[in-house]
């Protein structure tokens, strides 16, 4: 009888986004809440962050509602999805190629794609340029 075997979890390809002030170009850390459109669970709740990792769906579009200091924007990623084999012990996972990004302009000024390939090796894929709050916050 073999000992209980331990297997690694399958890897995950996550899109990495960082936040910059659209006027100064400096990094900012808004309080953010993130949830996927159509889902009940929040991905991130009330966290002060200067960057975020987001999972994409296996469909060709993935839409998120993102609250930046209580100002909500919708961000939709249009992407190609490819199934990848890691190993027969850890299983399969998905990688993505970003095609374009649609977004609302409540807080987001613009989005720059730095690396359209979303792989299991996380790196900065996009930069979100956020308008500064009029009250003089971030």
């Amino acid at each position, binding site marked *: *009888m*073999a000992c209980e*075997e331990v*297997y690694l*979890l*399958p890897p*995950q390809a996550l899109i990495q986004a960082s936040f910059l002030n659209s006027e100064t170009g400096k990094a900012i850390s808004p309080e953010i809440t993130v949830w*996927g459109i159509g*889902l009940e*669970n929040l*991905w991130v709740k009330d966290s002060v962050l200067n960057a975020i990792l987001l*999972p*994409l*769906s*296996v469909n060709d579009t*993935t839409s998120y509602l993102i609250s930046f200091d209580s100002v909500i924007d919708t961000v939709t990623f249009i992407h190609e999805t490819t*199934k990848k*084999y890691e*190993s*027969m*012990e*850890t*299983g*399969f*996972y*998905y990688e993505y190629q970003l095609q374009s990004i649609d977004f609302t302009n409540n807080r987001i000024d613009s989005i720059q794609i730095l690396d359209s390939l979303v792989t299991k090796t996380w790196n900065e894929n996009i930069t979100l340029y956020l308008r500064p709050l009029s009250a003089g916050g971030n």
Partner: protein
Amino acid sequence: MRILRYTFVLCLLAAISYGQAEPEKKLKPKRTDNFIRMKGIRVGVDVTRPFQDVWTKGNRYGSEFTFDMEIRPNLFPTFESGYELMKVNTDYINYTGKGSYSRFGIDYNLLQAEHKNDKDIFFIGLRYGFTIAKQQVDQYIVDSYWGTETGRYASQNFFAHWGEFLIGMKGEIFQNFFMGWTIRGKVRMRQKDLGMPPVYFIPGFGKADNKFNLDFTYSVYYNIPWDFRKSSGDKKIEIQK
């Protein structure tokens, strides 16, 4: 100071010995055991194959039979055939790979026999192995924030082949009964790319991710004491009559 003195003496000795003429090379004596020690065919079963589960990741089982005979003094053509099954069941994947395999090759005995009935051998050998096998992924699961994705891959048939170099020994424990171990270095040869998923397990070889696999086998054998040479000799005599 002492160290310096010793170093000097050592250097001096080395210089003196370098200058001396090389001693006369001893010629290796020719083998005197140029006779067939094992008459008939030896049949074996590998006792390690059913228990590979103990030292390999996943559930790997199998059985293997071997046949060899001493066709010329110290030369043993060998045929090995078996069946192996590999299952990997995790939270994310259920995989099965299975198939039968065969190897043929030759062993050369390095151990000089002390007398006519000394059948113990210490050998090196070469094998060519091949398998016609199949694999399938009964279910895979990809978990993410966006939900759980499941799928399966239907059965894929494939052919794979490899070469082996080996070293081992077989000792006679009772009359005609042998036991012995073999260490095998297996080198995978090129194989067709199946696409998704790639071949994971090659029966008889091991994990397909590796170009080289090391294996250990332990077998018990029985030498069928039928002297086919004597029989064929008798026949010739009958024809001459």
